[in-house]
Each structure stands twice: as structure tokens, then as C-alpha cells.
């Protein structure tokens, strides 16, 4: 395992950790807006670290650039997704933001 492999393994583990954090966030957070926050963490950081980890061990610049392109598109769509869903939830279904009290 060359040092590059160690580095990419570290990035992959980081990516996996953020994906886990995002999923747990979506499961545990009390209301729609917090869950949206958790969702976008998976998009940019979870996937980002996995992409960097794979780009390191892909060995060819073309593959690395394509991975970054995939991540770039996910970033764009996640930014718009988060904003659109939050506005739709606020206006359409009127999901009241969580008031800070501990729900049972």
C-alpha cells in the first residue's frame, strides 16, 4: 500500500463518515429544515471526499476530472434542491420550523 493509497483510503473513510452523518441527521433531526441541512452535507462533503479519494487512486487525469465533474453537478443540483424544497415546504405545506423545544 503506497502512501498515495493510504491517503486515498483516508479520504474514502472520511467520505463514508460524512455520508453516515448525513443519513443519521436525516433520521434524527426533528423537522424538515434540519433534515435538509443534513441532506446537503452528504451531497457536498460525503461525496466530495469519496470523489477525491477515488481520484487519487484512479491513476489517470481523465478519470479524476470526470469524477470531479460528477461532483460538480451534484453540488449544483444540491444547492438548488435545498433552496427549492425549503421554500416549497415553507409556502406549500406550511411545515412549521422546529421551535427548539425537545419533542417527546
Amino acid at each position, binding site marked *: 500500500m503506497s502512501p498515495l493509497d493510504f491517503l486515498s483510503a483516508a479520504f474514502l473513510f472520511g467520505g463514508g463518515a460524512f455520508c453516515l452523518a448525513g443519513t443519521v441527521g436525516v433520521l434524527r433531526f426533528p423537522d424538515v429544515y434540519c433534515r435538509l441541512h443534513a441532506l446537503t452535507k452528504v451531497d457536498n462533503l460525503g461525496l466530495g471526499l469519496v470523489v477525491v479519494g477515488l481520484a487519487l487512486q484512479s491513476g489517470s487525469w481523465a478519470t479524476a476530472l470526470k469524477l470531479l465533474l460528477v461532483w460538480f*453537478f451534484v453540488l*449544483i*443540483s444540491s444547492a*438548488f434542491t435545498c*433552496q*427549492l424544497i425549503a*421554500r416549497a415546504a415553507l409556502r406549500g405545506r406550511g411545515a412549521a420550523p422546529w421551535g427548539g423545544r425537545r419533542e417527546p
Partner: protein
Amino acid sequence: MDVLLDGVLALCLPLLAWLVLRTESLSQAVVLFVAFGLLSALGWARLEAPDIALVESAVGTGLTGALLMHTLSWTEETPPDIRARGRRRPWALLAVAASTLMLGWAVLALPADSPGLGPLVEARREESGVKHPVTAVLLNFRGYDTLLEIAVLLVAALGARAVNPRSERPTPDAGDDPLTGELFRMMMPALLLVAGYLVWVGDHGPGGAFQAGAILAGGGVVALLTMRMGPPRLSSWQVRWALLTGPMLFIGVAVAPLFTGRRLLELPRPYAGTLIFVVELALTVTIAMVLLMFFPGTRPPRAGAEGEP
């Protein structure tokens, strides 16, 4: 680890399918169905079928999800089929379980290593004019299926449009909303680029007209749902030509060999590659327009009885 991944994926596909059909509320069923489409795309990827994973993700998850979500505002939320739950007789379940076991046994009884038609296709691949075997089979060896498939798409588009005639054109500038506007402006160039790439890569890798057409249709749907573009009206000649270029060119290419003494759909060897590429380009336009016509412009019925969709 591979076995574990395959096992869990194969296990949770039917589980998710059952979950989709068990839920009462329709919106939950649709969202679960989108998740099911995603998992089946992963299944295709594990089964070494990248072409099908590509079509599943482009057409299945992208457009079918949007189409079903769009339909939710028409149909009532909690369907009145609670009674169906009580009517389930034990005999029916027993019969289904027995037939599933029989099907499973029949599938397992098949020989474990039959080569199938792979070697046959491999031997004749140079004649097809393309390097990727699936595209060779799709557009050359079994071009007949693809020709009829385009006809099926056309009939479905005309049927969907005939059933929803009153698609009055929403005012395109109604949605001058900066957010979706920016999303649309950012997405369209990327979609066009990737669609062109997929048609081109279809020659020597997974890709082709269906995936590219679905991606273009995805861009069109975003434009349609954000009121940037009215639904394609059948009366405008551009829509008609877009619908007809693919099939007419394909039929032309299919019939042309008859005049030079060859059989139907027998593409001449030297030009087969370019002919296939031209036909795929035309098919992309047609498929994009057909998939776009499935989205109506009409408003859901504002009947008092239904109230909140």
C-alpha cells in the same frame, strides 16, 4: 464483500417493491418508487449491464418519478382502496406463494453456464459497424425491435396527447422566478453536452439514443414545469417534424437496402457505422420530444370536492 453487497441488494429489491405497494398514501408510494428505481439501477450496475443502468437512471428514475409526482396533483391523496385489504383471501396468497416457488425453482434449474448468444454476436461484430456489442445488437442485428419500439413510443405519445386534449398553454413568463430560472440556465448546457456525449459514446461504449433522448427530455421537463416553455403542441410543425425525423429516417435506412438487392434492415458494411450514428441522432430528437409530450400543460381540476391536492 462482493457477495455481501450482491446479497443485500438482491434482498432489498423485492422488499422495497413490497414497501411501495403496501403504503396507503400515494405520495409515499411515488417517492418509494423513485428510490426503487435507484436501487434497480444499482442492481443493473452489479449485473454488469451499464447500458441498462444508464437507461434506468435516465428514463426510469428521472422522468417516471417526475411524471408520477406531476400526476399526484390530479389524483386524490388517500386512495379509497382500504377495503381491498380485507378482501385478501388466504387461497390467493397460497397460490401466489406456490407460483413464486415454482418460478424460482424453474430459474434455478437452468444450466449454470450456458454461453447464450454472446460468442455469436462477438464473431459478427465487425460487420455491424460499431464496436459496442449492445449497440450492434440494438441497431443492426436486431434493428427490427428498435424500429418497432420507436413506433410504440410514438403511439404512446399520441395516445397521451389525445387523452388530455385541453392542454392550454400556461403563460411562459408566469414563472419569472430567479431560482428555477438560474437552475434552468445552468442545467441546459450541461444536459446538451452530456446528451451529445452519450450519442457519440454509444458507438464504442454504453450509451445511445434512448439515454441521450431521456436527458434532453429531462431538461425540457424542467423548462415545462417552471413555466419557461409551454407543452409541445401537436399543431406546430416543429413538434411534428421532431416526432417524425427519427422514425422516417430509420425506415428510410431500413428500406433502402431492398433497392440494392439486399434484405430489409441489412445495412451495407462500409457505411453501417455512420448510418447507425445518423439514425441515433435523429432518434434522440424524437425520443426527447416523445418523452416531453407525456407531460401535460393542463391545470389539475379545481373541483371544490377535492380541495387540497
